[in-house]
């Protein structure tokens, strides 16, 4: 059986800094995988290498068994991989709704088709559903740059869902998000996961969120994989407690 995502001995060095230092793991279809680890252990760098934002120093990334190392982010996205960012990344001068439409439009049809097709590519309704879900209604026509931190974080997440992706890589989606909204977000992830079979990889420091959401957790430390297993095992792994959770 092929894995949705397979990372083999991936390395990324910045000069002397070994941000990612030989990481291998696989992600199975329909799984929600947690990725945790101390600050600076290389989680975001790993994401950036997988997604073509950075070129790995060494190693390989496979999507559905096909090597995708070296592809551009946009190409990967068209293959059904989308992501969120740890630092806020929205289109600040576009309205919230336009942000969302944009997030969905590049997946339908050809470029020429988009030039002559419908102006919103049929996405306004979908965007409005997202807006309602994340309780951003009164801000739908506001510029995204004027949203509060948590609201931007939510918008970022919403954008990742607009295209109906197969694989979503979320980089700290919970940071700054209100707990109640976070509970909703988690439910949403679970629904998408269950009903559409989408696969998730989640970087998060919020342990409640990770442990209750993920079926499996990978722990990184200093660029390497430290442990891997179901949440309950990870929670009690002494190495993980030592390196990450603290006492």
């Amino acid at each position: 059986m092929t894995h949705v995502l397979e990372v083999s001995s991936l390395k990324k060095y910045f000069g002397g800094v070994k941000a990612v230092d030989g990481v291998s793991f696989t992600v199975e279809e329909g799984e929600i995988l947690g990725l945790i680890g101390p600050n600076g252990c290389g989680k975001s760098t790993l994401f950036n290498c997988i997604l073509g934002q950075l070129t790995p120093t060494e190693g390989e990334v496979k999507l559905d068994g096909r090597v995708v190392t070296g592809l551009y982010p946009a190409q990967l996205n068209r293959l059904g991989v989308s992501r969120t960012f740890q630092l806020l990344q929205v289109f600040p001068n576009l309205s919230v709704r336009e942000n969302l439409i944009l997030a969905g439009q590049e997946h339908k049809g050809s470029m020429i088709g988009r030039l002559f097709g419908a102006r919103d590519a049929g996405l306004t309704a979908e965007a409005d559903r997202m807006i309602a879900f994340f309780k951003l209604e009164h801000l739908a026509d506001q510029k995204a740059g004027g949203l509060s931190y948590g609201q931007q974080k939510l918008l970022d997440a919403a954008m990742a869902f607009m295209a109906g992706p197969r694989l979503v890589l979320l980089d700290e989606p919970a940071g700054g998000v209100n707990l109640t909204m976070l509970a909703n977000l988690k439910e949403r992830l679970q629904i998408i996961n269950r009903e559409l079979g989408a696969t998730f990889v989640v970087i998060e420091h919020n342990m409640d969120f990770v442990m209750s959401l993920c079926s499996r957790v990978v722990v990184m430390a200093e660029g390497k994989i430290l442990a891997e297993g179901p949440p309950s095992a990870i929670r009690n792994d002494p190495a993980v407690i030592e390196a990450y959770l603290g006492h």
Partner: protein
Amino acid sequence: MIRRLDASLLILLVAFPILWLLPSGLKSYGLYVVSLWLVMSIAAMGLNLTLGYAGLTSLAQGAFLGIGAYATAILTTKAGWPLPAAFLASSALSFAVGVLLGFPALRVKHHYLAFVTLAFTVVVFLVARNEQWLTGGVFGIANIPRPVLFGSDLGAALPFYRLLLCVTLVLALAMWWLLKSPWGRAFLALRENAVRAASLGVDIRAYTLLAFAIGSAYGGAAGSLYAPLVEFIDPAPFALSASFVLLLTVVAGGAGSFFGPFVGAFFSYMLPELLRATGGWYLIIYAAVVLLIVMISPTGLLGLIERWRDHRSQAKAAAARAAAAPTLGAASGETDSLGKGATQ
């Protein structure tokens, strides 16, 4: 940003008959000036796409104006092509060159990109000046014919103006269509946050090249009309300063707003004519006006409308916020709980 485009279409369609009829009383000088305004508006429209929408700083629009003008001049005088054919060829040539010039934009941004395009402009200018066998060098190309379409001579000032008006309308409609399509939004995404756009599947490379190429094609189209308008070209009007003025035109008019180029071109190309009576002072007045515009509204003159719209939608959102019901009982009152806290 995109919403506003519907109103733009309406304005465009209303403006057309007015512009068709209005200048008929003008003498040839007046017609020449409005014609020049139309032509430069087309060039500015192109730059507005590249710069205003896609956020790619280009100092090459003057060069594309030149490429279009020379291509048309050479094709109509030396090869004897009719103007419409030369027009299409010039625009296509500019499009192709624009694609090539877009490649550096994939690698460098902002002032570095400005520099690369600046170098391109200098090279184009020098080729026009030095390659006398092709371009007539410093002596230029004279007697560029005005068109004869369907057997009627459009060489006189008024018919030629109306021809320009029609071409401008068609190009403006095409631009309108482009901007309201998903492409328009993708161009904005380039400008706003290319990293995010790429992760959403926006093909940064393709759209960057297209933004350059389409913008350049408009520049070339404008040049192709400029040549028969002036009936003579030499390298001077396509020097670096022309690109600077076009940049200024777009920003002062309102980069990223549909009619910005038209308003900007009014200031850059018509206002100086209106100020001729002031003798040597018009450039000072012109510069002062531009300075004032960007100081009062850094987003350009039409940016003011944008700002006003922002205000309105903000006010609306504020009202919605004010009307929102608190989820937690408001009745318990701030002073109440506050008093509790303070005295605890």
